[in-house]
């Protein structure tokens, strides 16, 4: 009997031991966001690169640079296998279910989630590994990047509005109207600026930024330069808040001018050296290798709207951006024989960097703000500094605001060709995206000004069309 008891006891001990085995197996296939409890310099570096790669990917997605160019009558994309490049842009409404409506949205929110994840992780960054100044500098940078993606989102959605993402991953937040979104972006940029102030101008980011943020005239690894970047965006946001056609706030123009001037290193109107025009952060593309991310503009089915070629002024050296196509691009009632120099499919163009916000845009934005603030002479100085840089004669003082707007629109079109939705935003706010100012490109041209919310977002909200936005 004793023997049985020993055996039974042995088995019981064995059973107890077995059941005590820790049943939790952490996934080792790939790290999870739960694994970010404690930030290291390496993990911060990788998370920053991951988030920025996501921003680049969506910025390089078709609606941002090509779609907005088509809406703004700078570009055509004609493809027999993909007629929706015309039917959902110049020929009809974009469909939220696919293609146009479905793009330029999800990826930015994925990037914003990534930025939010970093911001949460920074709250508990170990003081043994990071100085407080580094954490502040990093927080300021991440907040600025997040603001940039929100700016891209609202640029494409305009009055439709967009949601502001919550830190709770399950929360579907209300769709906020444009004014509320711009005000949120402005606040975000200000809090980032406060972070920079707390960090101190000499602090360096604890991560290595991609070359596009280091080598185009200015290295944004230091807080001093990040402040310029941040204020540039803030000036841009305040200008568009000021001119917002549905909710104008003229009092913001002087603020915008001050912020843009700060971003331009305090340069007086007309005094920004042309050598600085190209300075700014860029997205750099690596077409081959494991990265395999070519610049999407490098595509032979893209052409320039013939108007771009027709209205370029004699002697404007920016005409070099316009090249004659090897073959006519035509179909669906449209045709063009010119294209953007960077659109010609080639390895070099696939690697062509895309500016994010460069000084030339800031100069022209300041000119726009001066126009709205009634300071036409200052506006003229900035406009002329750009014109003369491209072989054109300086203009005489603008007779009126409309003349000034015409002048600045011309400069923006050719300076920022295929650099993003700048012209689309301007045409909208100046009330010029309509048949009064523009010729219809097709018989059914709806003069689209914005993309709808994508189908997935509508489905999640239980609606089939854009819901009314919350002010």
């Amino acid at each position, binding site marked *: 009997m004793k023997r049985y008891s020993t055996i039974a006891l042995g088995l019981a001990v064995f059973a107890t031991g077995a059941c005590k085995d820790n049943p939790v197996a952490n*996934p080792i296939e790939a790290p999870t966001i739960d694994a970010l409890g404690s930030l290291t310099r390496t993990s911060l570096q990788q998370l920053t690169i991951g988030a920025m790669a996501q921003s680049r990917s969506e910025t390089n997605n078709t609606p941002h640079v090509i779609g907005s160019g088509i809406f703004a009558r700078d570009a055509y994309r004609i493809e027999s296998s993909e007629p929706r490049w015309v039917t959902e842009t110049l020929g009809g409404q974009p469909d939220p279910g696919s293609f146009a409506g479905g793009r330029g949205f999800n990826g930015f929110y994925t990037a914003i989630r990534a930025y939010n994840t970093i911001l949460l992780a920074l709250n508990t960054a170990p003081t043994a590994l990071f100085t407080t100044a580094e954490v502040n500098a990093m927080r300021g940078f991440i907040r600025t990047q997040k603001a940039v993606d929100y700016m891209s989102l609202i640029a494409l959605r305009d009055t439709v509005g967009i949601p502001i993402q919550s830190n709770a991953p399950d929360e579907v937040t209300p769709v906020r109207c444009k004014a509320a979104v711009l005000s949120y972006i402005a606040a975000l940029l200000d809090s980032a600026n406060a972070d920079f102030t707390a960090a101190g101008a000499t602090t360096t980011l604890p991560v290595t930024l991609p070359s596009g943020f280091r080598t185009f005239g200015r290295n944004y690894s230091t807080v001093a330069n990040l402040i310029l970047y941040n204020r540039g965006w803030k000036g841009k946001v305040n200008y568009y808040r000021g001119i917002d056609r549905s909710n104008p706030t003229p009092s913001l123009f002087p603020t915008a001018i001050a912020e843009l001037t700060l971003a331009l290193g305090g340069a007086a109107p007309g005094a920004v050296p042309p050598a600085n025009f190209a300075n700014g952060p860029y997205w750099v593309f690596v077409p081959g*290798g494991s990265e395999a991310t070519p610049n999407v503009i490098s595509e032979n089915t893209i052409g320039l709207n013939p108007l771009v070629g027709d209205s370029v002024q004699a002697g404007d050296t920016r005409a070099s951006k316009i090249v004659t196509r090897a073959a006519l691009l035509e179909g669906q009632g449209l045709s063009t024989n010119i294209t953007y120099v960077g659109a010609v499919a080639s390895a070099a163009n696939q690697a062509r960097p895309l500016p994010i916000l460069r000084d030339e845009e800031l100069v022209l934005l300041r000119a726009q703000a001066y126009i709205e603030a009634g300071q036409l002479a200052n506006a003229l100085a900035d406009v002329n500094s750009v014109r003369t840089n491209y072989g054109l004669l300086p203009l005489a003082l603008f007779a009126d605001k409309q003349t000034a707007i015409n002048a600045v629109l011309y400069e923006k079109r050719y300076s920022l060709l295929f650099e993003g939705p700048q012209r689309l935003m301007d045409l909208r706010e100046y009330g010029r995206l309509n048949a009064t100012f523009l010729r219809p490109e097709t018989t059914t041209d709806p003069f689209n000004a914005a993309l709808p919310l994508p189908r997935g977002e509508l489905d999640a909200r239980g609606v089939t069309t854009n819901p009314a936005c919350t002010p």
Partner: protein
Amino acid sequence: MTRIRPFVFSLLMLTLFSASAFAQNRRVSGRVTVEGSGEPLAAASVSVVGTTIGTYTDDQGRFSLSAPDGPITLRVRRIGFAHKTAPVGSGDAEVAVGLSRDVLQLETQVVTGTATTVSSINAANAVTVVSSERLNRVPSQTLDQALAGKVPGALITQNTGAPGGGTQIQLRGVSTINAGFQPLYVIDGVIVDNSSIQSGLNTISQASRAGNLAQFSSTQDQNVNRASDINPNDIESVQILKGPSASSIYGSRGTNGVIIITTKQGQAGGKPTLDLQQRFGTARLANTLELRCFASAADTRAAGFDSTGYGASTNKCHNFQKEFYGEKPLNYQTVASLRGGNVSGTTYFMSGLVQHDGGLVNNDFYNKQSLRVNLGQPFGSRLKFNASLEGIHTLTNRGVSGNDNTGINPLNAISATPPHINLARNPDGTFPRNPINVVRNSNFFQNAELIKTPEDVFRFLGASSAVYTAINQERQTLDFTLRGGIDSYNDHAEIISPATTYIEQFNALPGTLFVSDGKVMNATLGASATHRLIRDVFTATTSAGFGQVRRNVDIVANTGRGVFPGVTNVSSATQIFTNQTQSIVKSSSFFIQEEFLTLGERLLVTAAVNSERTSNNGDAQKYYAYPKFSASYRTPTPNFIDELKMRLAYGRAGNQPTTGKFTFLTNLVLEGVTGFRASTVKGFPGIKPETASEIEGGFDLTMLTGRARLSATQFRKQIDNLLLQASVAPSTGFSSQTINGGQIVTHGTEIELGITPIQGERFSWISQTTYASNKGRVTRLPVPGFIPTSGSFGSRFGNAFIQQGQLVTVLQAVNGCTALSSTGTCPAANRILRFMGNSAPDYTMGFSNDLSFGPVRFSSLIDWRKGGLGVNLTNNYFDGGLLADTAVGNQRLRDFGAGKAVYVENTGFVKLREITLGYDLPANLTGKLFNGGVQRARIELSGRNLKTWTDYTGLDPEVSNFGNQPLGRFQDVTPYPPSRTYFLTINTTF
């Protein structure tokens, strides 16, 4: 767990001390022989009915046991024979029993738990048992191929005709959409891995994401599933638990059914028996497509083909299919096994296998070597140890087949290459360049010569068990079993595509090298206690225990682009892509089971519950219960019926979530630097297993003194909590999340009929017929209808589609057009999507017949699959081009353009799966062989897949481009053609 443990423990203690002893005071001995021939029957089990007393016969058929006083009844059983009971009077000490052969396999032991079995006479489930003999009648490359046509309710598909496996078994229909879909394999109580490691074929086929140089795998890679490593010759029997009503003991691995393999064991006291089996065989191309014939460039031009760049005419019309797939390999299989035991109870079984199967293409082959040792050793009268160890090595070179986007697939290249072009090797060893640009100048003869696709696997399976008999009394036993095992393998796969081939010239960096190393380990550990209590009116078997399973996977795959010819070191590549996959899954479970046999062994009632937790569940600490209830009743019958058993079983099993619990970080590369962001697939912390509940009922009828048997089963299987991808608002930063929801209900019928129309001394005929049908329907779906994430080529050709109210196996395709364009084509917007029907067969039947005329034996197996739809994309490659019937091809192409589902075809077939003619050498001849050392010798001629009858227009209605997915496998894309195999076997027993 804490509440359960004391309960189990006290139950054990109770049974330990409640036993009362019975007197055993006389010896009964006797002899068991084969009825008719009088041949002694070794290893027969002899037991005293109503007690636990029992023993086995020795190799002279003799036994001896101590029995209680008074009249007793002995029950004598042996596998392959019908059991018999023999009364022994109180004064008798000697008894003789003759057993008759159980040709229809009426009696086997069926697994009911981790440590329990029950005689099939009482079993409450329709468990199919395939014996070693039926399994190995015709040589097959792998175990799963050997099961084809023998298991009602099993749908066996192959992803390629290439040598060496790639077979999927689906039991009782589709059981999942996104979770694991393969049955669980268990050998001698140890879980055996049946995963497939990526072969890297996508690096050169670019079947998926063409142009993405880093993409090395896809579901179209024709991977080998690792169950193919199992050596069918070592198997004593295979039991197939087809659904949750039988497999609930396997918890969250049981949904897809369980294939339980028992390997051969030696026999205590038996004389050593040496079996030598030598097989020689060959394979032949079974089918080709009828193609057009042009003997010259002029002919080709005249037929309307663009002849730019065509090479010099050979003035010969080549049949590329026959030339390329024309290898006549010499296949062989050598099996040696030694089994026996000694009087002290040691048993052993050792076996070795050397196998080579050549393919239809130069350089394609499948080689396998294995060595197994099974040992048993008692220690004292109460303790018995068993251990087994098997080492397996397989090496395959399966060439390239299936979908591609590079022209590397031979059939793809053949579809574009006019037959007058000479591609044969030049005298200097070089190969001509194929002038056809669309297939990247692919010369398939050159590819077969230069491109290597070796996959080298070393595998070790080890298992051991200890059984301690704590109580061994006349009417009560208590056994404790401890069992553990490890299955571990290393899979080294390479793709070597040298920069010298014509197709590589189309890559920016010619020369591709893929090297992958995978380590997979499965460990199983379990302990159980089984108590058997025999009373006059009942026998109660109580068992309880616990188990643990752990699975580790670690695979590193490197792809190199731009590799020097001859270099096989991936670090020398110009550009290198690295990928690593790792996972750990830990599960633990405990169970308790009661089997109650009463009413004169007529009624068997079983109740059990298995509780299991696994690290893949959202809550890794939570136990999920998988209960089982079943009852069988052998009804009293009139004289002409031997036996009628009614049975009813209910059980629940699960299917573990594979991913979905966590939000992973996805890596992205920015300017060459790798970074991470949260995946767009959001983790679901509440994720739980899919659950399948099945109710199965039926009857087993035996008539005409065992000469006829009919077994019929009806089941209803309901799968709940399906793992589904649900969309989420993209503004959250995520696009989807894995959720539990939805339901599939499958109904099915399985019938087995066995008859022995003739059973004489010299001549016998045994006929077995199986029938199975099942249909699964999506009865609830909380997400919008969707195309499963499995691969397809779009709705114009046909794809799977999941929609509430539809069959889960429905095939959806564009078929119809609201308005044709002026050119007769259907614009994309006007195409009408329709459900075309069921991709799974309406029913399957197997007809097996064995005829013996004295020493001559003839057997055949016919496999019939009625109905079922597939998509024949291979036709699309040839239509409007080289298909011989140009009118049909052109019309099909026009109809396709007009929006008709012309490539959806009926894939029903009848196949002559196996055929064997055997001859037993007469005793006077065998007696002269090897100085009389040979006991038996047998010669067999056999063939596999010799003939197919089908309306299907492709090469083989069974082939599937997407093997590794539960749904939508039905795509036929330029596959490796099927082969007929022939074998000559010489079997000698020493």
